[in-house]
Structures are given as C-alpha cells and as structure tokens.
C-alpha cells in the first residue's frame, strides 16, 4: 500500500442534466390509483406508501423554515453562500452571464444591472431556506435477501449532487446516508417490486432534505443535508414503489 494516493472525485456533471423545472418530479402524496401495491417498508420509521403519512418535521437549521423545490444551479450556489455567511461573487460573475456577454457594448451596463438584480433577488429568496425537495435517479440496487433490503445508491455515503454557478462548485452530500440508503422490503414483497421495476435505472426518488451543515472552501463548498423522507417511483408508470421516513 505504499502508494501515491489520488483522490478522484469524478463528478459527472453532464449526468446531472440540470434540475427539472419547478414542480417536475416533486414529492407528491400518492393516490390510491397510482400506488397499486407499494411495498411495505421501513426506514427508521415505517410507513406504508399509500397511508398518507404526514411528513416528519425537519429540524430547522439555524431557525430556517423555508423550502426549495428542485432548485437550479444558481439558487443552490447562492444558498451555499448564504448558509456559509459569505458574500457571493455577484460582481465578479456578471460578465460571465451570457446575456451580458452577448449584449452590445452600449447595452452591457443595462444587462449587468439586470443580472445583478436577479442574483440579488435570488440571494434574498434563499435567506430562510432550511430544507430542499429534490428529485433524483434512485440507482436502486438488486434485492439483498440477507438483510431484506434494497440499497438506494443515490443516497449512499459516496453519492453527492453537484451544482455549478458563479464560478463556484457546491456539492450536496447526505449526512445520514448510511441509514437513508437502506430501503427495507420484506422478502415476500421483494419479488413484486423487482417485477415492477425491471431495470434499476427505471426508479426515481423524490426526497425531502433538511440542511444540517455547511462547509466553506475555496471556490465552493459542501452542504450536508439529512434525508427526512423519500418516495420511490417507477419511472414508466409513475407508480409509487415505497416511501421511507427517517428520524429527523
């Protein structure tokens, strides 16, 4: 093991494909029609997917109670700066905006002003944000019959979601990933889930994430979130496969 160690943080931003428009893929209470036979399962708190269980209250980070729904790159970077208590590099970023770049010389001051106001409004909009709802590809594992569970690899300790804007790179990591990634399904119901899923890539999840910590670093940083709850859906039909709620 005498080695040169290399940390490879292979962030495949292209794979992220950008967040969906607001509202798309947002967590929704499943109706009976769209959840024919959701697997009974348990995270730290068991709840049947069609039971309409109430969302557990996320502990507020520094008293923040606001919630973002599938935020875009710029919003997340502004949120990072707000959480870290650092001034965002708005002035330095104005000329990188395509509207400023493409504007005629005589129009550039106005374009800069417009972009600045947008960013300042965006910054004001994240001031009270303490939770995020995010839709992700679940990357579900095969069923583990030893422990009667699937692994939701999108929420595993090695998983992160990256956002790039304003020349900064912000990564969202899951603080309770070890427990959040476990989707327990009784053996008797596992086959039905496997039959419905087909391919692991056909499952998405809608997660409620509570901000737990922020770590500032040069040119970006990390936001650590705790997964409060998530729903797993089969992509083709949109059917609910299961819901996992975790201790706040």
């Amino acid at each position, binding site marked *: 093991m005498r080695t040169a160690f290399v940390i490879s943080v292979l962030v495949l931003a292209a794979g992220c494909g950008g967040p969906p428009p607001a509202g798309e893929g947002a967590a929704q209470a499943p109706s009976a029609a769209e959840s024919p036979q959701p697997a009974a399962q348990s995270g730290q708190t068991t709840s049947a997917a069609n039971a309409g269980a109430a969302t557990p209250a996320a502990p507020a980070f520094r008293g923040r109670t606001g919630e973002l729904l599938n935020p875009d790159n710029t919003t997340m970077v502004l949120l990072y700066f707000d959480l870290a208590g650092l001034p965002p590099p708005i002035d330095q970023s104005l000329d990188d905006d395509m509207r400023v770049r493409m504007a005629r010389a005589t129009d550039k001051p106005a374009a800069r002003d417009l972009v600045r106001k947008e960013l300042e409004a965006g910054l004001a909009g994240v001031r009270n944000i303490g939770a995020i709802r995010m839709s992700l*590809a679940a990357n579900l594992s095969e069923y583990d019959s*030893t422990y009667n569970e699937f692994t939701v690899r999108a929420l595993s300790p090695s998983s992160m979601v990256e956002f790039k804007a304003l020349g900064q790179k912000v990564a969202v990591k899951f603080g309770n990933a070890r427990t959040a990634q476990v989707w327990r399904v009784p053996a008797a119901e596992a086959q039905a889930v496997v039959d419905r899923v087909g391919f692991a890539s056909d499952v998405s999840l809608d997660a409620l994430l509570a901000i737990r910590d922020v770590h500032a670093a040069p040119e970006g940083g990390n936001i650590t979130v705790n997964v409060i709850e998530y729903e797993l859906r089969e992509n083709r039909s949109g059917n609910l496969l299961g819901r996992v709620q975790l201790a706040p």
Partner: protein
Amino acid sequence: MLNPRNTLILVAAALLTACGGGGPNPPGTVGNNAPNKEKPSGDATAEQVAEEVRAGLDCPADIDTPDRPPNSPVNDVVGVRPGLTYDEAQNVVLCTHDLLVASPPSTSGFNIKTYGATIRQGFSARFAEPRVNKSSRDYMREMNEDFMARSGNAVREDMKPGQSKWYVSTMGVPGEERVIAVAREEWFAEGRNPTMQSVADALVKKYGPPTRRQENPTVIVLAWIYDPQGRFVPETSPNAMRCTAMSSPDGGTSFSPDCGLVIGAQVRPVQDNPALAKFMQVGVADQSVGYELIVQTEQSLESGEMKRRADEVKNAAQNADAPKL
C-alpha cells in the same frame, strides 16, 4: 431529475516505481518524527544496522487506544489495526521482528491539499539490509547488472525467505494521525513452507468465512467485506463486488464511504510445488472511517487556510500600503 453519482471514492493508485521495496533509500528510522542525529557510516551487518535504528524501542508496545468493541469483526494484522495512533502502530510493527526498521513513505501520499502542513501519511517497514560502503566501480557494476537483468526480463524479488514487510497508512491533522489501513507480506522460510491450504485455513480461522474466495494454481485470494454499519457482506449481496480489497504493501488501496472494514489476503505458492506457500499478503482497511478521516483532515486544514487568508485580508485593510497612482 438529477442524477447523482456515487463519486466520492478515494482511489489509491500504486506507482510501480514504489514496488521493489529496497529502492534508492535504505530503510532507516522513520523520518518525520525521528530526531536529527548523525548518520552512521562504515560497513555494518543487518543486525548492527537494525540495532542502531531501533535504539530506544520498547517492546511489547504500549497501546492506549481502546480495543475494538466486543462482537465487532477482527480487524488487525499481527496486532496492527485501524484506529491506532501512528506511534502505536510503528511500535507494534517494529516489535514483531528484531530486524524490522521503519521508513517514511517514498511516495507523495494522499493527493489532498495540506496548505503547507506536514501530515505523517504512513510508514513502511522491512528487514534491515547490511550497510556496505561502495566505490564508484561497485555502483557501475550494479547498474550494469541491473540493466542486463531488465533486458533479459529477469525476475528480481525484493524479499528473501523468512522476511516480512509492512506498509501502514495513516491520516489525521499533524500529531494526531491514526491508522486507516495496514498491509503485510510474509515470505516463509525455505524448507519450512506451510501448505497453501493451511495458510488459507489459518486466515479463515482468524477472520471468519470470507465474502469472496478465488483459487487457482498460482494464487488463493480471499476477501472479507463489511458495510459501514459493521454488517458482514456475504457473497450473495449485491454490494459484495463494490468494495476493493487490497493486500499488498506495495499496491494501492481505495477508500470508499460505501464500504466498511475490508480485509484482503493472497497466498502464492513456491514455483516447483504449487501445494506449498511461498508467501502471503494480508491487508486491512477501514474504508468508510479512513475516508471520513481523510476528508475531515483536509477540511480542517482548509478551514485553517481560509482563516489565515481572511486574517491577512483584514490586516491588509488596516496596515497595507496604498498604491501610488
């Protein structure tokens, strides 16, 4: 829909140049914390070299780090386990044989930003070699012999029967480094080689039934894998192939937060009798804990750097010269 990737895996790539152990730097006292003293000169036997370097070593080693919790899996290699301090680990390693001497790593270690801080990222240990004063003619002859050997694809082993070598990987802020991985290779003494099967059986007796076991005429490979929650990962688990087990002191290792304790072992036979073991390698890494420690260390140093920069900017605002325009 966002597509997060399982990305945060610390990959340790082995440099082939690091293999072969002997290298240009003869084994000696671990450099990072060794007192500066005059380098001994003159011919000396391996025993004399070891005695010089190991002066002041106390055996058996004092271990203040608490034992592993009861009912947790066996995680040591001849007493060296993840969680020990740098000094404890070095003490245990050197106490396993009178001829072992430790050296600092010959490679640059983890590729993390240390902002000028010196972190002891590990040490190697191997048998002391006799010290021979060589003339320029001796060096030229050796270089020529090495060249001829390479040209003929000659096999040059860096170990002799009866010897062992170690690499211990450590991480932490300066002065608080702890073991995150350890690997040991042991060459069995000639004429006293155990059978391949008995070595494998001894490994299974110590570490339990393995997650993976592969056998062919040239090697037995074993791996024991646990998840970050300390649960054994059986062969049938979908996660069984996600964790890389490394056993060679000269190889690389990886630290994935998705993997817990990972133990790897290899047993290789002597050339003229595949039933007898020539040497074995055993490696242990607590991957998720190691990963966390690496990240924490880098973040801790990063925070210090951010504070230093902020303080300098603050001072500059008060004391800096104004430019003449």
